[in-house]
């Protein structure tokens, strides 16, 4: 018994924890400011949040420059290039979401301050997720990023749709985490430890044990829910439609990225030895996800809902590399990371345009985009770029993401990989079919209600638009930019 009670305080690497601490500090700061000045602080909130996010980037940069890999709590919490790249990605997308939110929230008739608190908290969870190499820390990070997200989804307290969105997201989320936890318990039962390294060893040594299969499966399902993979996607469309649009963007990008990050770590660090389970599983899931997502998207008339389904399909694309995780691990991780980075910008961009247009038309219906090109050519062109990117048409960024997938698949080689490649090819075609359903009214149709007043793009939205647009085009023309990050994240992720 004394063995159990012996406790030594683990050594804390403050530098490694600096990003999380900064974020936490700002989160608390916002709350305190809010409590003290309540209404008078309204204006400063978004600014504060923004500064917080940017400030958090500073320690990340210093860590990146320092470059040494730091591991804490017996390898439960690791800070390496991989985690840094993704932390940065989380923070940047978070910042863009803040930019998108400013006017939306200010014009909404709800008390706005905790909005930012919640968002920062959720981001904190994500930032932690990218460093977690242990079942417990993964679980905690997951819940830390999910619970605020449930509340954000239900943000418009008076709006029944928003409530419903929150409820669905919450319930499905909890179901999923229950399943995941059950899986974790089984995995733990086999490995006798919660850290991934040990788990990897134990799974490797142990013969194919059905319990292991069950455990792995349930854990993966838990995150498959997070990345809204078919058949665990059902919450996504409803939640996306019901939640406030900035939140939708946040869920569609940041929270999905978080799920992917968790999957990368679980699959490539912990479960890689059981490729006989993960590869077929992801082959199936990814094929299902992209196909179903695309097919349903064909029938959507609401732009947000369409983007939701497109997001599901995109998630399917991101899952493709996992199907060759063991055959071409490096390429696979690279592909996923690159895809995540590009996807963050192009999808956020699309949502920004949706926000900007909605400010005028007050409608989410695709028809309301008729003749956009006539009275808002700038927005029309921007939207075109983002949709082209999502469809993967050069020179907009998306093509390189898709290219990454194909690259991973063909590097692995083999009939199954090639088959999946063809499925991807077909899906890109289907995908463009519904992106075109947005482009057509924009370009080819006259304005439905003769209202041709130009759209006022507020400063914040403008900034968000510029950032996303530039990034999307840059990634398309000089993919090396994003490719580099993909590369660095590979080495450490496999090494760690």
């Amino acid at each position, binding site marked *: 018994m004394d063995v159990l009670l012996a406790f030594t305080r683990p050594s804390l690497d403050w530098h490694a924890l600096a990003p999380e601490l900064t974020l936490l500090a700002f989160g608390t700061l916002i709350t305190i400011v809010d409590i003290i000045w309540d209404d008078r602080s309204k204006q400063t909130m978004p600014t504060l949040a923004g500064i917080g996010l940017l400030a958090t980037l500073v320690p990340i940069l210093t860590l990146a420059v320092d470059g040494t890999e730091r591991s804490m709590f017996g390898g439960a919490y690791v800070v390496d290039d991989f985690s840094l790249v993704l932390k940065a990605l989380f923070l940047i997308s978070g910042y863009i979401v803040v930019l998108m939110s400013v006017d939306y929230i200010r014009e909404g008739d709800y008390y706005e301050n905790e909005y930012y608190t919640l968002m920062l908290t959720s981001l904190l969870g994500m930032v932690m997720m990218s460093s977690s190499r242990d079942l417990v820390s993964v679980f905690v990070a997951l819940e830390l990023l999910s619970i605020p997200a449930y509340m954000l989804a239900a943000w418009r307290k008076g709006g029944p749709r928003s409530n419903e969105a929150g409820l669905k997201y919450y319930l499905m989320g909890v179901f999923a985490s229950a399943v995941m936890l059950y899986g974790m318990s089984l995995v733990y039962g086999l490995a006798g430890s919660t850290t991934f390294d040990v788990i990897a060893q134990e799974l490797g040594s142990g013969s194919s044990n059905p319990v292991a299969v069950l455990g792995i499966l349930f854990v993966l399902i838990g995150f498959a829910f997070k990345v809204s993979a078919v058949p665990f996607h059902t919450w996504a469309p409803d939640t996306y439609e019901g939640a406030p649009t900035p939140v939708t963007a946040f869920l569609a990008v940041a929270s999905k990225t978080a799920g992917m990050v968790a999957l990368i770590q679980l699959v490539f660090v912990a479960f890689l030895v059981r490729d006989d389970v993960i590869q077929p599983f992801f082959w199936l899931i990814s094929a299902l996800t992209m196909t179903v997502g695309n097919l349903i998207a064909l029938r959507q008339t609401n732009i947000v809902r369409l983007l939701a389904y497109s997001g599901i399909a995109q998630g399917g694309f991101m899952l493709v590399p996992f199907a060759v995780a063991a055959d071409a691990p490096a390429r696979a991780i*690279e592909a996923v990371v690159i895809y995540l980075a590009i996807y963050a910008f192009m999808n956020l961009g699309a949502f920004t345009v949706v926000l900007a247009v909605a400010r005028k038309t007050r409608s989410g219906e695709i028809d309301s985009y008729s003749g956009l*090109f006539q009275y808002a*050519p700038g927005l029309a062109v921007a939207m*075109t770029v983002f949709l*082209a990117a999502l*469809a993967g*048409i*050069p*020179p907009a960024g998306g*093509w*390189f993401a898709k*290219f990454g997938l*194909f*690259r991973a698949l*063909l*590097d692995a*080689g083999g009939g199954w990989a*090639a088959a999946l*490649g*063809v499925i*991807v*090819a*077909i899906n*890109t*075609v289907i995908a*463009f*079919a519904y992106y*075109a359903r947005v*482009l*057509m009214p924009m*370009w*080819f149709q006259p304005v439905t209600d003769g209202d041709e007043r130009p759209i006022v793009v507020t400063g914040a939205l403008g900034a968000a638009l510029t950032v996303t647009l530039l990034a999307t085009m840059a990634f398309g023309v*000089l*993919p*090396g930019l994003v*490719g*580099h990050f*993909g*590369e660095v994240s590979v080495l450490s992720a496999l090494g760690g």
Partner: protein
Amino acid sequence: MEATGFDSWVLSLTVFLPLVGAVVIMMIPKAYEAEVKLVALGSSLLALIIGLYITIQFNYGAAGDLQFVVDKGWIDVINSRYIVGLDGLSLPLLMLSLVTVPLCLIYSWNHVPEPGNTKAFFILLLILSTGMNGTFVAQDMILFFVFFEIVLLPMYFLIGVWGGEDRRYASLKFFLYTLFGSALMIISFLALFFLSKDSAGELLHTFDMRVLTDVAGVGIIKSTQVWIFAGLFMGFGIKVPMFPFHTWLPDAHTQAPTVGSVILAAVLLKLGTYGFVRIAIPFLPDAAISWAPWIGLLAVIGIIYGALGCLAQSDMKRLIAFSSVAHMGFVMLGIATLTDFGINAAIFGMVAHGMITGMLFFIAGSVKERYHTLEISRLGGLLKSAPRMGWILGFASMASLGLPGLAGFWGEFPAILSAYNPGAGMPEETFRTYMVIAAIGTVLAAGYLLWLYQRTAFGEPPEEFAGHEIADVNRFEWIAWTPFLVGIALFGVWPNLIFNVTDDVVAGITASVEAIAAGN
């Protein structure tokens, strides 16, 4: 051999000058239409001038090897580089594309089709031209792919925004078809990237088209080669378009605005055939040998099929569109023989078809503008109401039906002739059958073109147009058309202008094919 000094810039300039022009135009507010036009024309003309400089500086003695080569880092992570270069195969097509765009700009100088908006229209044309020029000079597969795809969106919008009644359907169809093809194409590119070995059996992991041409697919097992070729075939064959992937073409052509059709016919279709000659065959000669008979089959089917399709049409533009299917059939037949004779003919055919069919679409556009219909049954007496246009139509039709002494013949006849002796290791009887079928195709061609000409140009003008005046060829049309007309006649009289440029490259390509065939 890397180019140095100014020569190392020329190709990039021809490719990107139009893009720069487009960006500049974006800056110019809509109101300043004159400036917009001038900038557009200026940038495209500048590109053309540099193109002329290239044709002068080009070392025809060494037309076989790449010149003006630039090789700079681009996407290091995937080991893809910015490599552009130009050889006898690229030169004619690059020039064709460089010439076509300014002509289109001039043609639509004062009448941008409904719903107007000159600025956007010209921007799209310029982006389009960047994509086309780039495709012809790119020497890195990824670069090629990017340029190959860049042309899609502008053309999609040209058709969709400025097109005819059914434009949405047509544009989407065009886009989805091509997108599907290119998605499969990129898979094949990657397969080549990962599987190509050099002579020592080392994996190359390169997108450099020069290298891949040299290794000529050795070390990739035959069955895999055949599959990779299948992907390339889809990518390029849809673009050509080959039967049975042609159905997007008539719709796209019919609905597209005049200059859209012209560019589509003159340049875009050539991207596919160019791809076959530049990539598919030299990279995978072995697979090419086993594919060639089938390609030839589809080609001759296309010839007859397109001709019959023409005979069925009641719309002038749609008829011309179908004739493209037939003519590209001749081109593909020439390629399918895998003989330098045939491939040379094919390249000549590309240029000739570009000018001739482009010309026909120009005329169709002007007719539409004057009569507000292209219903052949409603037209007539063009020779009477607009004699010059009538004569030009006659000239173009004659060229199109392969009249000797005009450009069309030199693409058609040698292609048929080459089918008599296909390349090494290919079924002679089969190709001789193709030859005869293709020869029959020439008759049908004469049939539908003369039928078209009789219905539209001959006879008395229909009374429904008796009232209003039909203007003859106007100044802008003259400027836009003369280069094509001159070219058709010039290349018809002196085919060697193109043949001896392309010959060396093609000889190189077929040499590798023969080497492989000898190996089998």
